[in-house]
């Protein structure tokens, strides 16, 4: 009797499991009834992060347009080991033709991606790239070093092409960061000679420190017109400092942070725009490349413009890297359309 009861209760638990699992499955893969050319897995290291949710939506949309089923997978908590498990399980499952992956770091995912490639699955990375042996192509936005130049343009849109500005960076010791700053300096000096860079400060990615630096800048340089931030932490802090010092309308902050973080700075009037990218668009780029790879296309013939539908600027910049060069400028008018 006891045995029977225990078996019944186990069965009940299982029934419950599958009904829950079933419901959740329906919602993600229902629309793929019509003929499907193939299946692409869109894998991140953390599901439930708005940035990746937007990316996944863009990926699924791009897939649909091309006739591919895109499944979105990612661990519930940011964890690269769990992302690796998902990729391994995809290989075992043997159903996907391509994997589009965002990596938590450039190396840990590589052994499993290599296995996927050995199993004949095409691999495209986007967002943060991994080491080249892990993927067929990296679908990139642009050389992020020169993203800073877009912020210089943004500054000119905010304050005009003359006046003093300061830069707050997350760090000054990082090679990537220093070359980005150098690029910005050269670009501004060449294109907008009337802009004057007064100083470059490091906030060590600490919002409190960024706030303090901003206040000091405002008092030290009475003619300061703009604070350019190269640090997610600094944008909001600089805007707060401008607001607290009563300099709204006199000094502006520029840089690139997500619309949800930019919103309060728009509301106070301390910033007019934030120049970043659309993760949905970017993920769609990666999915489109993956789809083309599945269909047998290769790009490694010659560098230069390539034909990728929906991405007119797309360009092969090295044997295994493509850029699509499309930034997105968030302004008070469009900020509410994006939720990441």
């Amino acid at each position: 009797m006891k045995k029977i009861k225990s078996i019944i209760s186990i069965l009940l638990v299982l029934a419950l499991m599958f009904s829950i699992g079933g419901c959740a499955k329906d919602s993600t893969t229902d629309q793929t009834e019509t003929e499907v050319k193939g299946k692409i897995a869109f894998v991140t290291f953390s599901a439930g992060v708005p940035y990746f949710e937007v990316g996944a939506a863009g990926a699924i949309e791009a897939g649909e347009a091309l006739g591919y089923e895109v499944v979105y997978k990612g661990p519930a908590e940011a964890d690269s080991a769990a992302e690796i498990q998902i990729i391994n399980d995809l290989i075992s499952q043997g159903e996907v033709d391509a994997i589009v992956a965002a990596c938590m770091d450039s190396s840990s995912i590589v052994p499993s991606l290599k296995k996927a490639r050995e199993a004949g699955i095409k691999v495209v990375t986007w967002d943060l790239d991994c080491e080249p042996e892990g993927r067929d192509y990296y679908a990139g936005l642009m050389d992020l070093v020169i993203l800073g130049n877009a912020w210089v343009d943004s500054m000119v849109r905010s304050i005009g092409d003359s006046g003093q500005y300061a830069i707050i960076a997350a760090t000054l010791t990082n090679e990537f960061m220093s070359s980005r700053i150098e690029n910005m300096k050269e670009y501004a000096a060449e294109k907008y000679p009337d802009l004057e860079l007064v100083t470059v400060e490091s906030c060590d990615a600490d919002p409190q420190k960024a706030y303090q630096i901003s206040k000091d800048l405002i008092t030290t340089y009475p003619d300061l017109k703009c604070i350019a931030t190269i640090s997610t932490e600094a944008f909001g802090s600089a805007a707060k400092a401008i607001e607290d010092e009563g300099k709204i309308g006199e000094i502006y902050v520029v840089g690139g942070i997500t619309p949800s973080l930019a919103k309060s700075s728009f509301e106070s009037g301390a910033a007019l725009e934030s120049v970043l990218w659309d993760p949905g668009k970017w993920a769609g780029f990666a999915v489109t490349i993956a789809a083309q790879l599945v269909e047998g296309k290769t790009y490694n013939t010659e560098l230069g413009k390539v034909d990728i539908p929906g991405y007119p600027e797309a360009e092969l910049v090295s044997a295994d890297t493509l850029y699509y060069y499309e930034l997105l400028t968030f302004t008070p008018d469009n900020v509410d359309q994006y939720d990441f």
Partner: protein
Amino acid sequence: MIKKYGNEMTLLLLIIILVLIFSIFSSNFFKLGNITQISAQMVELSLLTLGMSVCIISGGFDLSIGAMTGLGSVSLAMLLKTGMNMWSSILLVLLLLLICGLLNGSLIGFLRINPMLVTLGTSSLYTGLALVFSRGTAISNLPEQFSMFGQYYVWIIPYQALILLIGLITSVILLNFTIWGRRVYLIGSNPDVARFAGINCGYNLMLVYVYSAVLAFLAALVLTSRVATGRADLGDTYVLQSVSAAVFGGVGISGGSGTVLGAVLGVTIFAIISNGFNMLDFSPYAQQIVIGCTLIAVLAYRMWLSTK
């Protein structure tokens, strides 16, 4: 026999049923490749759950296993990158984690500070050290030879599954058949009574946390090799998972009851559910919900059995 190991038998039955069901729904589930896949993927969590189970059985907790795994991973990767001989690097890292375990164990066993507080504290200490060592970055390009622990096979069996098997057998023997193991159960059952029975609680508890550190070391070894990367946050998500797996496997949260075998069966069930649902393309959130519901259902079922 069946009665004594009733809980383990129930878990085993659940595993069989799960395997049957997933085999029906997914043609690729019951294939050699996938089965070895599961056995390879559950290793790190299983190793950490073994350590966590011993701590819980002794009446405590070790929240620092994740941090120790991260510290182990980072230091392993860094030592390997210096070009040091692989085996001496491994030995040095084992030594380092033994020191971590000794620190945890001494604070808990001899100074009698609450294990939760101690390991919460040392957890940030070890993570901090790992971050300082690695400057917060992932350390890659490890020597090819090192990938044996997480990527090689012995015949058809993943190398790390053998490590788990050895860890499991050792743990079963230590806990069920040695004086230390019995004392761990007795101390976990009631430390005051243990004291009045002439058991040296401090020393035995210290060993518990040293043992947990050794298992964290093994987890770090396997994990670092599997991902060919040293990272400070590699073990983070395993801490709470190991607690739920242990409890799922029948380890009583108040100490003194449960078996390490049950705990590893608990991990196996988690691994099967997670793999099976990935095969069926269920969303990650559904997995969380299902694992949560299964956990609650099993606990309720056990409660119901015990009150009958």
